[in-house]
Protein backbone atom coordinates (compact mmCIF):
# COMPACT_ATOMS: atom_id res chain seq x y z
CA UNK A 1 0.00 0.00 0.00
CA UNK A 2 2.70 2.44 1.06
CA UNK A 3 4.85 1.41 -1.85
CA UNK A 4 1.93 1.93 -4.20
CA UNK A 5 1.27 5.42 -2.89
CA UNK A 6 4.97 6.22 -3.05
CA UNK A 7 5.07 5.07 -6.65
CA UNK A 8 2.05 7.18 -7.45
CA UNK A 9 3.52 10.25 -5.75
CA UNK A 10 6.85 9.87 -7.48
CA UNK A 11 4.96 9.42 -10.73
CA UNK A 12 3.17 12.72 -10.15
CA UNK A 13 6.39 14.46 -9.25
CA UNK A 14 7.95 13.07 -12.41
CA UNK A 15 4.96 14.28 -14.40
CA UNK A 16 5.08 17.75 -12.88
CA UNK A 17 8.78 18.20 -13.56
CA UNK A 18 8.79 16.55 -17.00
CA UNK A 19 11.19 13.86 -15.90
CA UNK A 20 10.46 11.67 -18.91
CA UNK A 21 11.11 14.57 -21.26
CA UNK A 22 14.41 15.26 -19.50
CA UNK A 23 15.23 11.57 -19.84
CA UNK A 24 14.75 11.77 -23.58
CA UNK A 25 16.79 14.95 -23.82
CA UNK A 26 19.68 13.45 -21.91
CA UNK A 27 19.64 10.40 -24.16
CA UNK A 28 19.78 12.44 -27.35
CA UNK A 29 22.45 14.65 -25.79
CA UNK A 30 24.63 11.64 -25.11
CA UNK A 31 24.06 10.44 -28.65
CA UNK A 32 24.96 13.86 -30.01
CA UNK A 33 28.43 13.58 -28.54
CA UNK A 34 28.98 9.90 -29.19
CA UNK A 35 30.79 8.49 -32.19
CA UNK A 36 28.83 8.25 -35.42
CA UNK A 37 28.29 4.90 -37.07
CA UNK A 38 27.96 6.09 -40.65
CA UNK A 39 29.98 4.00 -43.07
CA UNK A 40 31.52 6.55 -45.39
CA UNK A 41 31.06 4.54 -48.56
CA UNK A 42 32.17 5.20 -51.27
CA UNK A 43 34.38 8.11 -50.26
CA UNK A 44 36.52 6.68 -47.49
CA UNK A 45 35.34 3.27 -46.47
CA UNK A 46 34.11 0.06 -47.95
CA UNK A 47 32.32 -2.98 -46.58
CA UNK A 48 34.00 -6.35 -46.99
CA UNK A 49 31.17 -8.88 -47.09
CA UNK A 50 30.97 -12.05 -45.05
CA UNK A 51 32.05 -15.37 -46.63
CA UNK A 52 28.40 -16.36 -46.97
CA UNK A 53 27.74 -13.30 -49.11
CA UNK A 54 26.41 -14.03 -52.61
CA UNK A 55 27.95 -11.56 -55.01
CA UNK A 56 29.34 -11.76 -58.53
CA UNK A 57 29.94 -15.34 -59.72
CA UNK A 58 33.43 -16.70 -60.27
CA UNK A 59 34.79 -19.89 -61.78
CA UNK A 60 37.42 -21.76 -59.80
CA UNK A 61 40.45 -23.05 -61.65
CA UNK A 62 42.78 -25.97 -60.94
CA UNK A 63 46.57 -26.03 -60.62
CA UNK A 64 47.09 -25.93 -64.37
CA UNK A 65 45.05 -22.80 -64.66
CA UNK A 66 42.16 -24.54 -66.34
CA UNK A 67 38.64 -24.18 -65.02
CA UNK A 68 37.21 -26.84 -62.76
CA UNK A 69 34.02 -26.80 -64.76
CA UNK A 70 33.23 -29.99 -66.67
CA UNK A 71 30.40 -28.43 -68.64
CA UNK A 72 27.79 -30.76 -67.21
CA UNK A 73 25.20 -27.99 -67.54
CA UNK A 74 23.66 -28.81 -64.17
CA UNK A 75 23.91 -25.19 -63.08
CA UNK A 76 22.23 -24.11 -66.27
CA UNK A 77 19.44 -26.61 -65.66
CA UNK A 78 18.76 -25.64 -62.05
CA UNK A 79 18.97 -21.91 -62.58
CA UNK A 80 15.46 -20.50 -61.98
CA UNK A 81 16.16 -17.55 -64.28
CA UNK A 82 17.71 -19.49 -67.13
CA UNK A 83 20.62 -17.15 -67.17
CA UNK A 84 23.55 -19.55 -67.60
CA UNK A 85 24.57 -20.67 -71.09
CA UNK A 86 27.07 -23.55 -71.31
CA UNK A 87 28.43 -24.97 -74.57
CA UNK A 88 30.72 -27.95 -73.88
CA UNK A 89 33.75 -28.95 -75.95
CA UNK A 90 36.70 -31.31 -75.69
CA UNK A 91 40.06 -29.60 -75.44
CA UNK A 92 43.43 -30.88 -76.73
CA UNK A 93 44.05 -33.02 -73.60
CA UNK A 94 40.75 -34.80 -74.15
CA UNK A 95 39.07 -33.13 -71.18
CA UNK A 96 35.57 -31.79 -71.21
CA UNK A 97 35.40 -28.06 -70.56
CA UNK A 98 33.00 -25.28 -71.47
CA UNK A 99 33.72 -23.52 -74.72
CA UNK A 100 31.16 -20.91 -73.92
CA UNK A 101 30.15 -20.17 -70.33
CA UNK A 102 28.04 -17.07 -70.01
CA UNK A 103 26.01 -15.74 -67.10
CA UNK A 104 23.50 -12.96 -67.67
CA UNK A 105 23.82 -11.08 -64.40
CA UNK A 106 20.99 -8.80 -65.41
CA UNK A 107 18.60 -11.70 -64.96
CA UNK A 108 20.33 -13.53 -62.11
CA UNK A 109 18.61 -13.33 -58.74
CA UNK A 110 21.70 -14.43 -56.79
CA UNK A 111 19.99 -17.41 -55.24
CA UNK A 112 23.19 -19.49 -55.24
CA UNK A 113 21.49 -22.62 -56.58
CA UNK A 114 24.12 -22.95 -59.30
CA UNK A 115 26.79 -23.08 -56.60
CA UNK A 116 24.91 -25.82 -54.75
CA UNK A 117 24.25 -27.84 -57.87
CA UNK A 118 27.76 -27.89 -59.27
CA UNK A 119 29.29 -31.39 -58.91
CA UNK A 120 32.81 -30.20 -59.75
CA UNK A 121 32.98 -27.32 -57.26
CA UNK A 122 33.57 -25.00 -60.15
CA UNK A 123 31.14 -22.12 -59.82
CA UNK A 124 30.49 -20.02 -56.75
CA UNK A 125 29.20 -16.61 -55.80
CA UNK A 126 31.99 -14.40 -54.54
CA UNK A 127 32.67 -11.10 -52.78
CA UNK A 128 32.40 -8.64 -55.65
CA UNK A 129 29.31 -6.47 -55.51
CA UNK A 130 29.98 -3.32 -57.50
CA UNK A 131 29.02 -4.22 -61.05
CA UNK A 132 26.06 -2.10 -61.99
CA UNK A 133 26.07 -0.78 -65.51
CA UNK A 134 24.12 1.41 -67.90
CA UNK A 135 24.14 -1.28 -70.57
CA UNK A 136 22.53 -4.63 -69.87
CA UNK A 137 24.75 -6.26 -72.52
CA UNK A 138 27.86 -5.75 -70.43
CA UNK A 139 26.19 -7.71 -67.66
CA UNK A 140 26.56 -10.88 -69.71
CA UNK A 141 29.86 -12.20 -68.40
CA UNK A 142 31.92 -14.77 -70.25
CA UNK A 143 34.15 -17.64 -69.10
CA UNK A 144 37.50 -15.87 -68.90
CA UNK A 145 36.07 -12.90 -67.11
CA UNK A 146 34.43 -15.23 -64.59
CA UNK A 147 37.73 -16.98 -63.98
CA UNK A 148 39.37 -13.65 -63.25
CA UNK A 149 36.75 -12.60 -60.70
CA UNK A 150 37.69 -12.40 -57.01
CA UNK A 151 36.56 -15.32 -54.89
CA UNK A 152 35.05 -15.51 -51.44
CA UNK A 153 36.57 -13.74 -48.47
CA UNK A 154 38.04 -15.66 -45.55
CA UNK A 155 36.95 -13.42 -42.69
CA UNK A 156 34.89 -10.49 -43.88
CA UNK A 157 32.26 -8.51 -42.09
CA UNK A 158 34.48 -5.50 -41.65
CA UNK A 159 34.86 -1.98 -42.92
CA UNK A 160 38.18 -1.14 -44.53
CA UNK A 161 39.65 2.13 -45.68
CA UNK A 162 38.90 2.67 -49.36
CA UNK A 163 38.96 5.38 -51.95
CA UNK A 164 36.54 6.36 -54.68
CA UNK A 165 38.20 6.68 -58.05
CA UNK A 166 36.52 7.87 -61.21
CA UNK A 167 39.58 7.66 -63.46
CA UNK A 168 38.70 4.38 -65.19
CA UNK A 169 35.01 3.83 -64.72
CA UNK A 170 33.90 4.23 -61.12
CA UNK A 171 35.67 2.01 -58.64
CA UNK A 172 36.02 1.89 -54.92
CA UNK A 173 39.35 0.35 -54.14
CA UNK A 174 40.56 -0.62 -50.72
CA UNK A 175 43.61 1.27 -49.55
CA UNK A 176 46.04 0.40 -46.79
CA UNK A 177 46.80 -3.05 -45.46
CA UNK A 178 43.23 -4.25 -45.60
CA UNK A 179 42.93 -4.38 -41.81
CA UNK A 180 39.29 -3.63 -41.19
CA UNK A 181 37.32 -2.34 -38.25
CA UNK A 182 34.15 -3.79 -36.86
CA UNK A 183 31.25 -1.64 -38.00
CA UNK A 184 29.31 -2.49 -34.85
CA UNK A 185 31.94 -1.10 -32.52
CA UNK A 186 30.10 2.16 -31.73
CA UNK A 187 26.61 0.74 -31.65
CA UNK A 188 25.07 0.36 -28.23
CA UNK A 189 23.33 -2.91 -27.71
CA UNK A 190 21.27 -3.68 -24.71
Amino acid at each position, binding site marked *: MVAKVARKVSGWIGWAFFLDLLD*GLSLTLS*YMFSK*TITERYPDDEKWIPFPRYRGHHFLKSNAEGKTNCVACELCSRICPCRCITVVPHEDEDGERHPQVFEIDLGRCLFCGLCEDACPADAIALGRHYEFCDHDSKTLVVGRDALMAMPGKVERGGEVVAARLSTEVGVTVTATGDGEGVDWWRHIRRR
Partner: protein
Amino acid sequence: MESFFAIGLIIGKLAVVIAILLVLPIPLTWIERKIAGHIQQRLGPMRVGWHGLLQPLADGIKLLTKEDHIPTEADRFLFTLAPIIALVPPFLVFVAIPIGDSVTIFGTEITLYLADMNVGLLYILAVAGIEVYGVIFAGWASNSKYAVLGSLRTCAQMISYEIPMGFSVIGVVMLAHSMSLLDIVEAQAGLWNVVYQPLGFFVFFVAGLAEAQRIPFDLPEAEGDLCAGYHTEYSGIRFSFFMISEYLIVVFLSALIVLLFFGGWHGILIPLPPVVWFLLKLSFFIWVFMWLRFTFPRYRYDQLMSIGWKVLLPLSLANILISGIFML
Protein backbone atom coordinates in the same frame (compact mmCIF):
# COMPACT_ATOMS: atom_id res chain seq x y z
CA MET B 1 26.30 67.33 -41.64
CA GLU B 2 25.51 65.79 -38.28
CA SER B 3 22.08 64.57 -39.31
CA PHE B 4 23.44 63.41 -42.65
CA PHE B 5 25.93 61.24 -40.82
CA ALA B 6 23.24 59.91 -38.48
CA ILE B 7 20.99 58.91 -41.39
CA GLY B 8 23.91 57.26 -43.12
CA LEU B 9 24.64 55.31 -39.97
CA ILE B 10 21.05 54.10 -39.70
CA ILE B 11 20.96 53.03 -43.34
CA GLY B 12 24.27 51.28 -42.90
CA LYS B 13 23.04 49.41 -39.85
CA LEU B 14 19.83 48.47 -41.66
CA ALA B 15 21.80 47.08 -44.58
CA VAL B 16 24.02 45.06 -42.26
CA VAL B 17 21.03 43.63 -40.36
CA ILE B 18 19.16 42.70 -43.53
CA ALA B 19 22.25 41.10 -45.04
CA ILE B 20 22.94 39.09 -41.91
CA LEU B 21 19.33 37.95 -41.64
CA LEU B 22 19.23 36.88 -45.27
CA VAL B 23 22.45 34.91 -44.94
CA LEU B 24 21.74 33.46 -41.51
CA PRO B 25 19.47 30.57 -42.62
CA ILE B 26 22.32 29.18 -44.72
CA PRO B 27 24.56 28.18 -41.80
CA LEU B 28 21.51 27.36 -39.69
CA THR B 29 20.26 24.68 -42.09
CA TRP B 30 23.71 23.16 -42.12
CA ILE B 31 23.92 23.19 -38.32
CA GLU B 32 20.43 21.77 -38.00
CA ARG B 33 21.22 18.90 -40.32
CA LYS B 34 24.48 18.22 -38.54
CA ILE B 35 22.73 18.18 -35.16
CA ALA B 36 20.02 15.90 -36.55
CA GLY B 37 22.67 13.60 -37.92
CA HIS B 38 24.71 13.37 -34.76
CA ILE B 39 21.68 12.81 -32.57
CA GLN B 40 20.89 9.84 -34.78
CA GLN B 41 24.56 8.80 -34.87
CA ARG B 42 24.86 9.81 -38.49
CA LEU B 43 27.31 12.29 -39.93
CA GLY B 44 24.86 14.56 -41.71
CA PRO B 45 25.93 16.24 -44.94
CA MET B 46 29.49 15.25 -45.78
CA ARG B 47 30.06 15.35 -49.52
CA VAL B 48 29.65 18.94 -50.72
CA GLY B 49 32.65 20.85 -49.45
CA TRP B 50 34.49 20.18 -46.20
CA HIS B 51 32.08 18.27 -43.94
CA GLY B 52 29.24 19.31 -46.23
CA LEU B 53 29.69 23.01 -45.53
CA LEU B 54 28.64 23.95 -49.04
CA GLN B 55 25.51 21.81 -48.89
CA PRO B 56 23.18 24.75 -48.06
CA LEU B 57 24.51 26.60 -51.11
CA ALA B 58 23.81 23.59 -53.30
CA ASP B 59 20.32 23.36 -51.82
CA GLY B 60 19.82 27.08 -52.39
CA ILE B 61 20.76 26.77 -56.05
CA LYS B 62 18.44 23.81 -56.34
CA LEU B 63 15.56 25.78 -54.82
CA LEU B 64 16.21 28.78 -57.06
CA THR B 65 16.32 26.75 -60.24
CA LYS B 66 13.25 24.65 -59.49
CA GLU B 67 9.99 25.29 -61.24
CA ASP B 68 7.94 27.92 -59.47
CA HIS B 69 4.58 26.27 -59.73
CA ILE B 70 1.20 27.85 -58.99
CA PRO B 71 -1.72 25.42 -59.01
CA THR B 72 -4.47 26.35 -61.48
CA GLU B 73 -7.13 26.25 -58.77
CA ALA B 74 -5.15 28.56 -56.49
CA ASP B 75 -5.94 32.17 -55.76
CA ARG B 76 -2.96 33.64 -57.59
CA PHE B 77 -2.86 36.96 -55.78
CA LEU B 78 -2.96 35.55 -52.25
CA PHE B 79 -0.73 32.69 -53.29
CA THR B 80 2.05 35.05 -54.32
CA LEU B 81 1.40 37.40 -51.43
CA ALA B 82 1.54 34.79 -48.67
CA PRO B 83 5.29 34.00 -48.72
CA ILE B 84 6.05 37.72 -48.57
CA ILE B 85 3.74 38.23 -45.61
CA ALA B 86 5.43 35.32 -43.93
CA LEU B 87 8.90 36.67 -44.64
CA VAL B 88 8.58 40.36 -43.77
CA PRO B 89 7.56 40.24 -40.06
CA PRO B 90 10.67 38.34 -38.91
CA PHE B 91 12.74 41.09 -40.53
CA LEU B 92 10.63 43.83 -38.95
CA VAL B 93 10.98 42.26 -35.53
CA PHE B 94 14.74 42.57 -35.60
CA VAL B 95 14.42 46.35 -35.78
CA ALA B 96 13.58 46.35 -32.10
CA ILE B 97 15.99 43.66 -30.96
CA PRO B 98 19.19 45.04 -29.48
CA ILE B 99 22.28 42.87 -29.53
CA GLY B 100 24.26 45.09 -27.19
CA ASP B 101 24.39 48.51 -25.64
CA SER B 102 26.79 50.56 -27.73
CA VAL B 103 30.34 50.31 -28.93
CA THR B 104 32.82 53.05 -29.77
CA ILE B 105 34.54 52.66 -33.10
CA PHE B 106 36.94 55.38 -34.32
CA GLY B 107 35.71 57.75 -31.66
CA THR B 108 32.06 57.50 -32.71
CA GLU B 109 29.59 55.82 -30.47
CA ILE B 110 27.53 53.29 -32.38
CA THR B 111 24.44 51.84 -30.74
CA LEU B 112 23.94 48.15 -31.38
CA TYR B 113 20.24 48.38 -32.05
CA LEU B 114 18.15 50.03 -34.73
CA ALA B 115 15.43 51.49 -32.58
CA ASP B 116 14.94 51.75 -28.84
CA MET B 117 11.17 51.93 -28.61
CA ASN B 118 9.53 52.43 -25.26
CA VAL B 119 6.97 49.81 -26.35
CA GLY B 120 9.58 47.51 -27.86
CA LEU B 121 8.21 44.31 -26.41
CA LEU B 122 4.66 45.09 -27.45
CA TYR B 123 5.85 45.95 -30.94
CA ILE B 124 7.75 42.66 -31.21
CA LEU B 125 4.85 40.51 -30.06
CA ALA B 126 2.44 42.36 -32.33
CA VAL B 127 4.60 42.22 -35.45
CA ALA B 128 5.53 38.59 -34.87
CA GLY B 129 1.82 37.84 -34.81
CA ILE B 130 1.45 39.11 -38.37
CA GLU B 131 3.57 36.24 -39.64
CA VAL B 132 0.61 33.95 -38.99
CA TYR B 133 -1.32 35.70 -41.74
CA GLY B 134 1.24 34.51 -44.24
CA VAL B 135 0.65 30.96 -43.12
CA ILE B 136 -3.12 31.30 -43.15
CA PHE B 137 -3.15 32.95 -46.58
CA ALA B 138 -0.84 30.28 -47.92
CA GLY B 139 -3.14 27.52 -46.81
CA TRP B 140 -6.27 29.29 -48.01
CA ALA B 141 -4.88 30.35 -51.37
CA SER B 142 -3.49 26.93 -52.22
CA ASN B 143 -7.00 25.54 -52.47
CA SER B 144 -5.79 22.15 -51.34
CA LYS B 145 -7.18 20.24 -48.41
CA TYR B 146 -3.86 19.53 -46.78
CA ALA B 147 -2.84 23.15 -46.96
CA VAL B 148 -6.17 24.35 -45.58
CA LEU B 149 -6.02 21.86 -42.72
CA GLY B 150 -2.50 23.02 -41.95
CA SER B 151 -3.46 26.65 -41.86
CA LEU B 152 -6.58 25.96 -39.78
CA ARG B 153 -4.38 24.24 -37.25
CA THR B 154 -2.07 27.25 -37.34
CA CYS B 155 -4.96 29.59 -36.56
CA ALA B 156 -6.08 27.57 -33.58
CA GLN B 157 -2.54 27.06 -32.35
CA MET B 158 -1.69 30.74 -32.62
CA ILE B 159 -4.76 31.86 -30.71
CA SER B 160 -4.11 29.44 -27.88
CA TYR B 161 -0.41 30.20 -27.61
CA GLU B 162 -0.25 33.96 -28.19
CA ILE B 163 -2.18 34.50 -24.97
CA PRO B 164 0.05 32.60 -22.52
CA MET B 165 3.05 34.03 -24.35
CA GLY B 166 1.83 37.57 -23.86
CA PHE B 167 0.95 36.93 -20.22
CA SER B 168 4.26 35.27 -19.46
CA VAL B 169 6.27 38.38 -20.35
CA ILE B 170 4.16 40.60 -18.13
CA GLY B 171 6.13 39.44 -15.12
CA VAL B 172 9.31 40.63 -16.79
CA VAL B 173 7.74 43.96 -17.65
CA MET B 174 6.62 44.36 -14.04
CA LEU B 175 10.14 43.78 -12.79
CA ALA B 176 11.70 46.24 -15.20
CA HIS B 177 8.91 48.85 -15.02
CA SER B 178 9.35 49.24 -18.76
CA MET B 179 8.56 47.64 -22.06
CA SER B 180 11.75 48.80 -23.69
CA LEU B 181 14.10 45.89 -24.19
CA LEU B 182 17.09 48.02 -23.24
CA ASP B 183 15.55 48.82 -19.86
CA ILE B 184 14.57 45.20 -19.36
CA VAL B 185 18.15 44.11 -19.96
CA GLU B 186 19.50 46.87 -17.72
CA ALA B 187 17.16 45.73 -14.95
CA GLN B 188 18.81 42.33 -15.11
CA ALA B 189 22.33 43.62 -14.54
CA GLY B 190 22.41 42.11 -11.05
CA LEU B 191 20.45 38.91 -11.36
CA TRP B 192 18.88 37.39 -14.43
CA ASN B 193 15.14 37.30 -14.69
CA VAL B 194 15.09 33.53 -14.99
CA VAL B 195 15.85 33.40 -11.27
CA TYR B 196 12.84 35.57 -10.41
CA GLN B 197 10.60 34.24 -13.13
CA PRO B 198 11.24 30.54 -13.66
CA LEU B 199 7.56 29.95 -14.31
CA GLY B 200 7.38 32.82 -16.76
CA PHE B 201 10.42 31.49 -18.58
CA PHE B 202 8.92 28.03 -18.80
CA VAL B 203 5.63 29.29 -20.19
CA PHE B 204 7.37 31.61 -22.61
CA PHE B 205 9.66 28.85 -23.82
CA VAL B 206 6.88 26.34 -24.44
CA ALA B 207 4.64 28.94 -26.04
CA GLY B 208 7.62 30.06 -28.11
CA LEU B 209 8.10 26.53 -29.39
CA ALA B 210 4.47 26.53 -30.44
CA GLU B 211 4.83 30.01 -31.98
CA ALA B 212 7.77 28.88 -34.06
CA GLN B 213 5.85 25.76 -35.02
CA ARG B 214 8.72 23.62 -34.00
CA ILE B 215 8.51 20.04 -32.86
CA PRO B 216 6.82 19.02 -30.54
CA PHE B 217 4.24 21.58 -31.66
CA ASP B 218 4.70 21.48 -35.42
CA LEU B 219 1.14 20.39 -36.09
CA PRO B 220 0.61 22.87 -38.98
CA GLU B 221 3.26 21.16 -41.05
CA ALA B 222 3.07 17.63 -39.74
CA GLU B 223 4.65 15.64 -42.54
CA GLY B 224 3.01 12.42 -41.51
CA ASP B 225 -0.61 13.50 -41.64
CA LEU B 226 -0.63 16.65 -43.79
CA CYS B 227 2.10 16.19 -46.44
CA ALA B 228 3.77 19.45 -45.55
CA GLY B 229 0.87 21.45 -44.17
CA TYR B 230 0.34 24.98 -45.35
CA HIS B 231 3.23 25.00 -47.82
CA THR B 232 2.29 21.75 -49.54
CA GLU B 233 1.68 23.50 -52.85
CA TYR B 234 4.69 25.77 -52.74
CA SER B 235 7.91 25.11 -54.57
CA GLY B 236 11.09 26.83 -55.51
CA ILE B 237 11.81 30.33 -54.28
CA ARG B 238 8.43 30.81 -52.62
CA PHE B 239 8.94 27.72 -50.53
CA SER B 240 12.35 28.98 -49.51
CA PHE B 241 10.69 32.19 -48.25
CA PHE B 242 8.76 30.09 -45.75
CA MET B 243 11.93 28.27 -44.80
CA ILE B 244 13.85 31.49 -44.22
CA SER B 245 10.99 32.88 -42.19
CA GLU B 246 10.91 29.77 -40.01
CA TYR B 247 14.61 29.92 -39.27
CA LEU B 248 14.46 33.64 -38.53
CA ILE B 249 11.64 33.06 -36.08
CA VAL B 250 13.80 30.54 -34.25
CA VAL B 251 16.59 33.11 -34.07
CA PHE B 252 14.18 35.82 -32.97
CA LEU B 253 12.66 33.66 -30.23
CA SER B 254 16.09 32.68 -28.96
CA ALA B 255 17.05 36.35 -28.93
CA LEU B 256 13.90 37.24 -27.05
CA ILE B 257 14.46 34.50 -24.46
CA VAL B 258 18.00 35.75 -23.92
CA LEU B 259 16.88 39.37 -23.62
CA LEU B 260 13.90 38.77 -21.38
CA PHE B 261 15.09 36.00 -19.11
CA PHE B 262 18.82 35.47 -19.46
CA GLY B 263 20.23 38.91 -18.91
CA GLY B 264 20.77 39.96 -22.52
CA TRP B 265 24.41 40.92 -22.90
CA HIS B 266 25.27 40.76 -19.22
CA GLY B 267 27.74 38.02 -18.62
CA ILE B 268 28.56 36.05 -15.49
CA LEU B 269 31.96 35.11 -14.10
CA ILE B 270 33.92 35.28 -17.36
CA PRO B 271 34.46 38.84 -18.57
CA LEU B 272 33.78 38.79 -22.29
CA PRO B 273 32.63 41.67 -24.51
CA PRO B 274 28.84 42.09 -24.07
CA VAL B 275 28.13 41.33 -27.73
CA VAL B 276 30.04 38.06 -27.49
CA TRP B 277 28.06 37.11 -24.41
CA PHE B 278 24.82 37.86 -26.21
CA LEU B 279 25.77 35.85 -29.28
CA LEU B 280 26.92 32.92 -27.12
CA LYS B 281 23.61 32.76 -25.29
CA LEU B 282 21.74 33.21 -28.55
CA SER B 283 23.51 30.32 -30.21
CA PHE B 284 22.96 28.20 -27.12
CA PHE B 285 19.21 28.68 -27.35
CA ILE B 286 19.15 28.07 -31.08
CA TRP B 287 20.96 24.84 -30.36
CA VAL B 288 18.42 23.95 -27.67
CA PHE B 289 15.59 24.49 -30.13
CA MET B 290 17.21 22.11 -32.59
CA TRP B 291 18.04 19.61 -29.89
CA LEU B 292 14.38 19.54 -28.82
CA ARG B 293 13.30 19.11 -32.39
CA PHE B 294 15.16 15.86 -32.83
CA THR B 295 14.26 14.47 -29.44
CA PHE B 296 10.51 14.72 -29.10
CA PRO B 297 7.68 13.28 -31.08
CA ARG B 298 4.80 15.51 -32.09
CA TYR B 299 1.89 16.13 -29.70
CA ARG B 300 -1.56 15.10 -30.76
CA TYR B 301 -3.81 17.98 -31.73
CA ASP B 302 -6.16 17.81 -28.73
CA GLN B 303 -3.16 17.51 -26.40
CA LEU B 304 -1.71 20.62 -27.99
CA MET B 305 -4.88 22.58 -27.32
CA SER B 306 -5.30 21.34 -23.79
CA ILE B 307 -1.68 22.15 -22.94
CA GLY B 308 -2.25 25.66 -24.20
CA TRP B 309 -5.51 26.39 -22.41
CA LYS B 310 -5.39 24.14 -19.37
CA VAL B 311 -1.72 24.28 -18.41
CA LEU B 312 0.05 27.27 -19.88
CA LEU B 313 -2.68 29.86 -19.47
CA PRO B 314 -3.30 29.19 -15.72
CA LEU B 315 0.44 28.99 -15.17
CA SER B 316 1.04 32.35 -16.80
CA LEU B 317 -1.78 33.94 -14.82
CA ALA B 318 -0.38 32.45 -11.62
CA ASN B 319 2.99 33.86 -12.58
CA ILE B 320 1.57 37.37 -12.87
CA LEU B 321 -0.19 36.97 -9.54
CA ILE B 322 2.90 35.71 -7.73
CA SER B 323 5.09 38.45 -9.23
CA GLY B 324 2.51 41.02 -8.18
CA ILE B 325 2.40 39.74 -4.60
CA PHE B 326 6.18 39.83 -4.35
CA MET B 327 6.37 43.32 -5.79
CA LEU B 328 3.95 44.73 -3.24
